C-alpha cells in the first residue's frame, strides 16, 4: 500500500523501506530553528557536557520574540546567544537588525524551508514550513538541546488527514477564514499528533503567503505538521534563495488517510475566533458591532506583504476610528522594506496606524502593545488564549487582515465586505 507524505518522508529519513502510523523512528533533521529561547537551550546544552553542536551549519537562530530587547533580562538573553553563536561558528544567525523579523518568516525568506527536508524548531509554529513541502514540527527546549548535542530525535510516525479544498474565495474571504473554519470544525484537538495534507485546485491557486497562513495554524488543531505539495510557485519562490539541495516528496495516490475532508471556498464567509480558544469560531456578522480597543496586523500568520496590502486597500485615504489603536508589525524587514517602497506603510501611517519593528511584538505578551484589563483586541495572529497578549482580563478575537482593518476603521468588529 502507498504512503502518505509523513510516512514517505520519515521512512526515507530513517532509511526504512516502509513505516506505518505509530512506529517510532530515529531521524536526523536537515535544519533546526530557535529564536530568543536559544538562550535557555544554550544553558541546557552546556549542562549535558558536550562541547560542540553537532552541525553548526544546520542551526538557524533568529531573534524575534522581544526585539529590540525591552528589559535587561531580555538583553542578557540576547547577549548569551551572540556569544554562543560566535563561539560555535553558527553562521545562520539573524540578530536585531534590518535582515531579521519573525523567525518563521525569515526562515522561509532566507531559503531554509526546502521541500523534502525535515525541520525541527523550538517553536510550535515551525509547522508553517509545510507550505513548501517540508516535514516541520515543533519541539521543546530540552529536546532542542538534545538535538544540538546528538543530531538525532525520536519521532512517532503520525496518522494523516487529507483536506481537499476546491472553488474560489468569495469577496472578503481569505486563507485565514478557511483555516479558522477548519479548526472550528475539527476542534482544538481535532488533528492531535496528526499530519494534515492540504490538496485540491484551490490550494494550487493560492500564493505562497496564503499557503503559509494555512500551515502556520495547523498546530491550533493539535497537528504535528502540515503539508502542501510543492509546485511551480514553490520552485520559483525558492529558485534564487534555496540554501541547500532538495527534491520533491509527494504522497502516493493510494496512501491511506484517517480522514478525508472537502471544503468548498464559495461556501465560506468572513470568520472570527472568539476568546479564549482558537476553535471558538463564528461568522464575523455574529459579533459585528462589538467595540474594540486595539487592532493588531502582523505575526507569522498574517504579517506579510499581501496582508499589509489588503489593510492599506481598506484604510487608504481614511482614518481609523477614534479610540482605537492600530498596531501594524511587518513580519520581517524584507516585508517592511517592500511595503515602504510600495507606499503601503505611508498609507497605513496616514490612516493612524503605529508601525512597530518586525518581530513578534505583543503576540505573546512580551511588549509593543500589551492589553489593559477589560480591553478587547482584534488580531491577525494565531492564538487568542486567556492572557496571551499579556493580560488575563482582556479579550482577543482572531480574524483576517481585512476583517481587522475594517474593524479598526469602524471601531467595532466589522465584516470586511461592508468596506471593500
Amino acid at each position, binding site marked *: 500500500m502507498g504512503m502518505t507524505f509523513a510516512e514517505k518522508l520519515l521512512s526515507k529519513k530513517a532509511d526504512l523501506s516502509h513505516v506505518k502510523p505509530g512506529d*517510532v523512528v530515529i531521524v536526523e533533521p536537515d535544519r533546526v530553528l530557535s529564536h*530568543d*529561547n536559544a*538562550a*535557555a537551550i544554550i544553558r*541546557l546544552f552546556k*549542562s*549535558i*557536557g*558536550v562541547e560542540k553542536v553537532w552541525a553548526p551549519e544546520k542551526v538557524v537562530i533568529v531573534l524575534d*520574540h*522581544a526585539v529590540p530587547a525591552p*528589559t535587561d*533580562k*531580555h538583553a542578557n*538573553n540576547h547577549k548569551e546567544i551572540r556569544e554562543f553563536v560566535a563561539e560555535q561558528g553558527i553562521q545562520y544567525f539573524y540578530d536585531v537588525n534590518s535582515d531579521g523579523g519573525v523567525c518563521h518568516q525569515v526562515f522561509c525568506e532566507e531559503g531554509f524551508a526546502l521541500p523534502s527536508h525535515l525541520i525541527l*524548531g*523550538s*517553536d*510550535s509554529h515551525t509547522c508553517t514550513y509545510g507550505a513548501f513541502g517540508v516535514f516541520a514540527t*515543533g*519541539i*521543546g*527546549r*530540552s*529536546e532542542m*538541546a*538534545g538535538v544540538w*548535542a*546528538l543530531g538525532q530525535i*525520536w519521532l512517532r510516525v503520525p496518522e494523516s488527514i487529507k483536506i481537499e479544498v476546491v472553488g474560489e474565495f468569495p469577496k472578503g474571504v481569505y486563507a485565514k477564514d478557511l483555516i479558522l473554519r477548519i479548526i472550528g470544525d475539527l476542534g*482544538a*484537538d481535532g488533528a*492531535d*499528533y496528526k499530519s494534515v495534507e492540504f490538496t485540491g485546485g484551490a490550494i494550487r491557486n493560492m500564493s505562497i503567503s496564503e499557503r503559509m497562513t494555512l500551515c502556520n495554524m495547523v498546530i491550533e488543531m*493539535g497537528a*504535528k505538521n502540515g503539508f502542501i505539495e510543492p509546485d511551480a510557485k514553490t520552485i520559483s519562490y525558492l529558485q534564487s534563495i534555496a540554501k541547500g539541495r532538495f527534491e520533491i516528496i509527494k504522497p502516493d495516490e493510494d496512501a491511506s488517510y484517517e480522514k478525508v475532508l472537502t471544503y468548498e471556498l464559495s461556501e465560506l464567509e468572513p470568520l472570527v475566533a472568539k476568546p479564549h*480558544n482558537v*476553535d471558538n469560531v463564528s461568522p464575523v456578522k455574529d459579533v459585528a458591532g462589538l467595540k474594540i480597543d486595539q487592532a493588531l496586523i502582523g505575526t507569522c500568520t498574517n504579517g506579510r506583504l499581501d496582508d499589509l496590502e489588503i489593510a492599506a486597500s481598506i484604510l487608504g485615504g481614511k482614518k481609523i476610528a477614534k479610540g482605537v489603536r492600530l498596531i501594524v508589525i511587518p513580519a520581517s524587514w524584507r516585508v517592511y522594506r517592500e511595503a515602504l517602497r510600495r507606499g503601503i506603510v505611508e498609507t497605513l501611517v496616514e490612516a493612524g496606524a503605529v508601525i512597530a519593528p518586525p518581530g513578534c511584538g505583543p503576540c*505573546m*505578551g*512580551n511588549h509593543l502593545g*500589551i492589553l489593559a484589563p477589560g480591553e478587547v483586541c482584534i488580531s491577525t495572529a494565531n*492564538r487568542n*488564549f*486567556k*492572557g*496571551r497578549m*499579556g493580560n*488575563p482580563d482582556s479579550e482577543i478575537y482572531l480574524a483576517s487582515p481585512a476583517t481587522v482593518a475594517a474593524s479598526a476603521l469602524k471601531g467595532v468588529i466589522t465584516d470586511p465586505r461592508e468596506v471593500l
Partner: protein
Amino acid sequence: MIIKGRVWKYGDDINTDVIFPGKYTYTVLEPSEMAKHALEDLDPSFAKEARPGDIIVAGKNFGCGSSREQAATCLKALGIGAVVAKSFARIFYRNAINQGLLVIQCPELFEFVVNGEEIKIDVDKGEIHTLGGKVFRFSPLPEFVRRIIDDGGLIPHLRKRFKER
C-alpha cells in the same frame, strides 16, 4: 513507583498560555520561580496550595498551544506527581517526559474523581486507585520513555549517556 496525592481537576484544552503565561518566558528563569506562576491565569490558588505529589486530572488536549517547556517545568518544580488527562497535546507530552514529569493518558478517570480527592497511581502496574476503591488502568510507558523519566528528564538522561561514552 507509587504516587499519592490530591486531585486538582481542570477541563478540556488547558493551553500552555494559562499554564505558564508567555509574558514570563524570558524573565522568569528559575524553576522554583516558574512554579509560583503555574496555572496563574486559570486558577490563582493552584500554585499557592498545591502540595508535592498532588495530581492534575484534566480533560482532553492538555497542554495545547505553544512549545514552551516551562509549562511542564513549572508543574514539575511545584512537585506535581503526575498529570492524568483524557488526552495530551503533542509538544506538551514530549516536554513533560523531557522534564521528568509523569504524564498518563486515561480517558476514563475524569468522570470518577472530584477536586481534592486523594488518589493513588501505581506506575509499574499501570493502575490508578480512587478513594471509592475504583481501579483504572493505563498503558505502561514505553521503556525508553520510562528511562528518561526515571533519570529525572532528558537533560540528566543525556548527561548520563555522554558520561558513559
